[in-house]
């Protein structure tokens, strides 16, 4: 006798039959009928027509029948709101029942009936239940507040339920505490601004106590809540860590991962010298590894999180390489993740093992996995120099297998290896050339063509090879076409005599027969370069290539820090901050790791200023993004003409060098009035830019630069008063304040160093991280004598703009490292853009008009400058002091229109139209620029200059 009997139907019509049974006098028959109804409901059948009949069965002493009716109600009340009211009386009565089980059941079910009218009746019973003597009822009521909030948030606030809920955090019963925390967290998620979970040392203590006693699910809620707390110092952080650590041995993997999150976050505050720090690191490894022996679904989530943890703190799992070895019957999603982590953990110590494994994987069945394994071998070569040779020979072995996709992947990665280790492995080119014909994927073809072009002088028949590709030029994908164009130009520059015909052929194919603007424009650029100045062409096309970075697919440090705060959540699975994808989160609070207090470590970790830790000592390294070839293709040009990945996240943006020297030179030649260069060529980079402007920054020091201030010196451009950049408490007594100035063509950073410590400071040095405009110190920081305690020294550091360029966010962000005999300190500051306005920024009238027209309208940005009491002439002269030149002044309908131009150090022109209405202190500023992302900062400069 099973429940499947409930599914059988009769001839008369099911609903009719059920109706009769529901109204039967016999209790047993009634119950059976309700069961049938529920059974139909579970498979998605519509039985809402029976609503009144089922509700009639509600008043009963039989608990099972009652529960069944409740199940039905929850499902259908929404579709029959008027009739649902009929049930209210029973609910209210049940909330007074002596049996706590029934009281809880009633309050629980009422919350699930998502009908507005019912919520009003729910308030009184709920209030009672929240104060019920039985903890079971209280904990159910706590959840009910969250349900009610979901239906009618205003009501919950008006009725003061939130306060009652907050009180429950101090409840004597741990289960009630856990549920209150869970309910508050859920409510807080939809109201990020409301400070619902007001965490303080007392409430944290209560949570930690409840943590030990509540159920596993409650532990998850409490741990997730704890992770949002910001301990006041490292001692508090340590004591919380100590009390959370036992959770790492819990059998429930979600508890373990939530505990890992708390520890990873609070560890940030602990000094690395502490013994406890080391102990904690050791304790983290085993539970993470244990997660990998669970079910594959759990493994997957764990692996995605481990991927983050390994990037943040590689030392935790560096000895655990083997647990990531792939078993042939792992699900594919687990295999791919394991492979990723293996490469991250690869080091000189374990590379032999890793390579042996990867080679094994390259002969597996699953194509996706094999490809990734081959790629991984290439990544190992690039990451661990000692292994490069072995990797290359492994790749050659794989090419010998002649398995098509293996060969293609191998060629793609070998190209990267060539770039990383120039002049070392070119002997294998011959082998690669043998496989030319079998390449049918664009990426592999493009890679091969790149190799042929790059090493044209070593390949005897390079011209023949390239010519053979040229035959089917129009059928190739853009990627291959662009690469072919560049490769043939390279070939021509290397062997000009034999290949003139070939280069002409490709240029005409690219410029005349192609519809692709990127291809056409690149063709024109090469054409012009080659025809006007072959020497310059050589310099540009065959330029020294920047190194490719060792780590690929690294998550940008600020994002990584944010993601560490989201360990165990969906964000950690997708490696995106929740703001990027969670629909329910209305407005998002950005989480960040706590700053380390009292740390004495040196440049080792990027904690203090995320992403600012690497000072610009290393050679320029471009981080390779998903599309490595994209970078390669663009090397000759600077700006990515082939469409770069357009994303809304600011992450990858940082890597694309949009303002680099390449664009600079292009712009200049464009301004020079070349007919060949349509403005279309710049639409690609332009389209990408605005997205990054609004992106939030998490630099705590970002706000230091204040626009308001006293009057600066009148000669030269406006100089803001000095502000504190590095407070003494963050830099062991060294206080740095400063500002930027520009006088007669030279930029300087005016600094005030104050020693607020008790010891003498000496050996000062300064370095800048790569920044948007290549600002760099032009001379070393020269402090004449050691700085005695309480002494202040004022100095001016000359700057130039020939440093390496990396786009920052915000654009005018400058990350600085200052060293003295005590330590290295990092801070970041925003420089006003007008220090970059050069003296020869005055454009010809005609040119201005032409350029203004030429820049597409979508590049125009409009701003309001408020409360500026100056007239047009005063404005004009004031701006001229800062190298903003007025080219023309017109009076249109009583308004003064000023047309102005300025040029940045990297050659970007900005054109401006300033509209001034006499008597109205608010000006309208329209800016046009080919790189519109600078507009906002130019506007800020305008404001700063005009208001001071």
């Amino acid at each position, binding site marked *: 006798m099973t*429940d499947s009997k*409930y*599914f059988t139907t009769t001839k008369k019509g099911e609903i009719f039959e059920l109706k009769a049974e529901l109204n039967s006098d016999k209790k*047993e028959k009634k119950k059976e009928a309700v069961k049938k109804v529920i059974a139909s409901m*579970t*498979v998605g059948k519509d039985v809402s027509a029976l609503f009144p009949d089922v509700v009639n069965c509600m008043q009963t002493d*039989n608990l*099972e029948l009652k*529960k*069944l009716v409740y*199940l039905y109600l929850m*499902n259908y009340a929404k579709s029959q709101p008027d009739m649902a009211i009929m049930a209210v009386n029973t609910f209210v009565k049940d909330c007074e029942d002596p049996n*706590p*089980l029934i009281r*809880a059941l009633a309050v*629980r079910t009422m*919350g*699930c009936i998502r009908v507005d009218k019912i919520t009003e009746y729910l308030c009184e019973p709920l209030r009672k239940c929240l104060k019920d003597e039985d903890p*079971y009822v209280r*904990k*159910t009521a706590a*959840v009910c507040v969250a*349900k009610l909030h979901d239906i009618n948030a205003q009501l919950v606030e008006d009725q003061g339920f939130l306060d009652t809920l907050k009180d429950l955090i101090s409840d004597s019963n741990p*289960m009630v505490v856990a549920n209150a925390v869970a309910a508050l967290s859920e409510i807080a*998620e939809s109201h990020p601004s409301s400070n619902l979970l007001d965490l303080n040392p007392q409430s944290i203590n209560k949570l930690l106590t409840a943590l030990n*006693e509540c*159920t*596993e699910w409650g532990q998850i809620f409490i741990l997730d809540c704890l992770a949002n707390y910001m301990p006041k110092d490292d001692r508090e952080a340590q004591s919380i860590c100590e009390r959370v650590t*036992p959770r790492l*041995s*819990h*059998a*429930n*993997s*979600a508890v373990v991962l939530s505990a890992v999150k708390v520890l990873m976050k609070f560890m940030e505050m602990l000094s690395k010298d502490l013994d406890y720090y080391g102990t904690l690191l050791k304790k983290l490894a*085993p539970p993470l*590894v244990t997660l990998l*022996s669970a079910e594959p*679904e*759990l493994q*997957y*989530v764990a692996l995605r999180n481990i991927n983050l943890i390994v990037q943040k703190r590689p030392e935790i799992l560096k000895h655990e390489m*083997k647990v990531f*070895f792939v078993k*042939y*019957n792992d*699900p*594919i*999603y687990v295999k791919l993740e394991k492979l990723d982590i293996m490469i991250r953990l690869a080091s000189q110590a374990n590379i032999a093992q890793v390579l*042996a*494994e990867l080679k094994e994987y390259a*002969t597996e069945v699953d194509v996706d996995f094999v490809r990734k394994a081959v790629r991984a071998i290439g990544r190992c070569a690039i990451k661990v120099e000692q292994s490069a040779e072995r990797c290359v020979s492994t790749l050659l072995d794989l090419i010998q297998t002649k398995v098509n996709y293996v060969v293609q992947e191998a060629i793609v990665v070998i190209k990267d290896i060539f770039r990383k280790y120039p002049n070392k492995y070119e002997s294998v080119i011959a082998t690669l050339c043998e496989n030319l014909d079998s390449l049918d994927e664009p990426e592999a073809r493009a890679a091969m063509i790149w190799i042929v072009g790059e090493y044209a002088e070593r390949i005897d028949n390079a011209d023949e090879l390239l010519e053979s590709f040229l035959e089917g030029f129009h059928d190739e994908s853009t990627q291959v076409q662009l690469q072919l164009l560049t490769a043939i130009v390279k070939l021509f520059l290397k062997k000009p005599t034999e290949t003139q015909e070939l280069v002409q052929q490709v240029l005409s194919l690219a410029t005349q027969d192609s519809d692709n603007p990127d291809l056409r424009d690149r063709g024109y650029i090469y054409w012009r370069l080659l025809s006007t100045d072959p020497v310059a062409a050589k310099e540009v096309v065959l330029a020294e290539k920047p190194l490719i970075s060792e780590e690929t697919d690294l998550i940008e440090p600020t994002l990584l820090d944010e993601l560490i705060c989201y360990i*165990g*959540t969906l964000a950690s*699975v997708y490696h995106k901050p*929740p703001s990027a*994808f*969670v*629909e329910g*989160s209305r407005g998002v609070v950005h989480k960040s790791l706590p700053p380390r207090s009292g740390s004495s470590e040196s440049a080792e970790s990027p904690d203090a200023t995320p992403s600012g830790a690497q000072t610009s000592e290393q050679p320029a390294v471009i981080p390779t993004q998903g599309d490595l070839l994209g970078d390669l293709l663009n090397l000759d040009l600077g700006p990515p003409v082939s469409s770069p990945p357009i994303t809304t996240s600011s992450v990858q943006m940082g890597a694309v060098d949009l303002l680099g020297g390449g664009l600079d030179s292009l712009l200049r030649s464009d301004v020079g009035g070349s007919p060949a260069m349509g403005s279309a060529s710049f639409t690609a980079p332009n389209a990408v830019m605005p997205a990054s402007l609004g992106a939030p920054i998490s630099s705590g020091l970002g706000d230091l630069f204040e626009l308001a201030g006293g009057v600066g010196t009148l000669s030269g451009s406006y100089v803001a008063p000095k502000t504190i950049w590095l407070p003494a408490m963050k830099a062991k007594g060294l206080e740095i304040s400063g500002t930027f100035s520009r006088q007669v063509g030279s930029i300087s950073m005016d600094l005030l160093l104050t020693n607020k410590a008790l010891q003498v400071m000496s050996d000062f040095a300064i370095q800048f991280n790569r920044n948007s405009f290549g600002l760099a110190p032009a001379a070393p920081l020269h402090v004449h004598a050691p700085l005695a305690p309480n002494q202040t020294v004022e100095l001016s550091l000359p700057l130039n703009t020939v440093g390496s360029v990396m786009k920052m966010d915000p654009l005018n962000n400058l990350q600085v490292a200052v060293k003295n005999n005590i330590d290295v300190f990092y801070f970041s500051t925003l420089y006003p853009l007008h220090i970059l306005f050069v003296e020869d920024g005055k454009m010809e009238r005609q040119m201005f008009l032409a350029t203004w027209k030429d820049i597409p309208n979508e590049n125009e940005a409009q701003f309001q400058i408020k409360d500026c009491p100056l007239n047009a002439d005063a404005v004009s002269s004031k701006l001229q002091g800062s190298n903003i030149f007025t080219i023309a002044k017109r009076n249109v309908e009583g308004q003064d229109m000023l047309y102005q131009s300025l040029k940045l150090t990297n050659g970007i022109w900005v054109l401006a139209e300033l509209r001034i209405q006499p008597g109205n202190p608010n000006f309208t500023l329209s800016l046009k620029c080919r790189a519109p992302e600078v507009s906002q900062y130019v506007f800020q400069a305008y404001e700063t200059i005009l208001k001071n």
Partner: protein
Amino acid sequence: MIHSLFLINCSGDIFLEKHWKSVVSQSVCDYFFEAQEKAADVENVPPVISTPHHYLISIYREKIFFVSVIQTEVPPLFVIEFLHRVADTFQDYFGECSETAIKDNVVIVYELLEEMLDNGFPLATESNILKELIKPPTILRSVVNSITGSSNMGDTLPTGQLSNIPWRRAVVKYTNNEAYFDVIEEIDAIIDKSGSTVFAEIQGVIDSCIKLAGMPDLSLSFMNPRLLDDVSFHPCIRFKRWESERVLSFIPPDGNFRLISYRVSSQNLVAIPVYVKHTISFKENLSSGRFDVTIGPKQNMGKTVEGVIATVHMPKAVLNMNLTASQGSYTFDPVTKVLTWDVGKINPQKLPNLKGIVNLQSGAPKPEENPSVNIQFKIQQLAISGLKVNRLDMYGEKYKPFKGVKYITKAGKFQVRT
């Protein structure tokens, strides 16, 4: 939190749905079906799928997909753990977690799901508590119920629900008091072509069956507790005692449960009990190949290796296999290309061997990949890590319980590459 749950069978029918908040249309499962189609193999369906308005987190167990729908940021592990708990509960209640069992007990299933989750928050997931709220179906009970008209629903608040030991019922009575522990160790290993160990570790568990009356307080100690440095505990275990004295001290749940699970990974502690000698080769032009596999015992501490089964996923190009087994029997499924050799016990004097000819599709290129051999085996009365229980003490109750410990070692994911 968890919004809805859909149960889907292998042929893609949604046979049960449950919503804890508002109703989510079945059509959301289309995204799941899409992913399922793309994955080709049921095991390869990604566990987290995003759709425009929801996230689908699923597990695959006993040929059923448990697909949960979530709408807000929720720890996915929390959802996955919960889904496994649901499957465990079904198993516990109906003896098996299958589509038929669920359909046969659909009302109980529905009541259980309602009891386990409230508004997406877990409510009661401990089997002990659930069984007090909703009694598992038995033939006797349904007969009694139909005569007396009583229900299978408990009408008082389960006592464990709010105590500090939510895992234990309050009034437990037995005439025979017994406590049994099974120490089960599984060896996960990857052995390379040449027979050396690439990776090996032991996944151990201690499963307990405790039927003791009243409120017994147990302490279990080991001869060599140092082995256990990576352990996950059942919530009943007092962590502090373990930290300080390396003794497992706990008030047990009633019935069957997993006391601890542990991992032993340091290579020198993981003995590999069997070895495999193999030649699997394919000839370039002859459309055939040779297959020769021998399995022998290695370090088994004088115990017999039994229940040996070898499975090999042969390459796609293999048509069929003509083999002779010196012991046991073999089958080859030409559709899935899986060769299964049921060996049985290994007799060290006469090693089991399976050899013969592999027939390939004519004209197909020689397979590139080398198939791995998956080995299963069992060794009774041995914990391969050497873990030994020292003694079990009981406090709080006066009677003398029967006590017993059993050891068994099995192959986990034990793979030999060829």
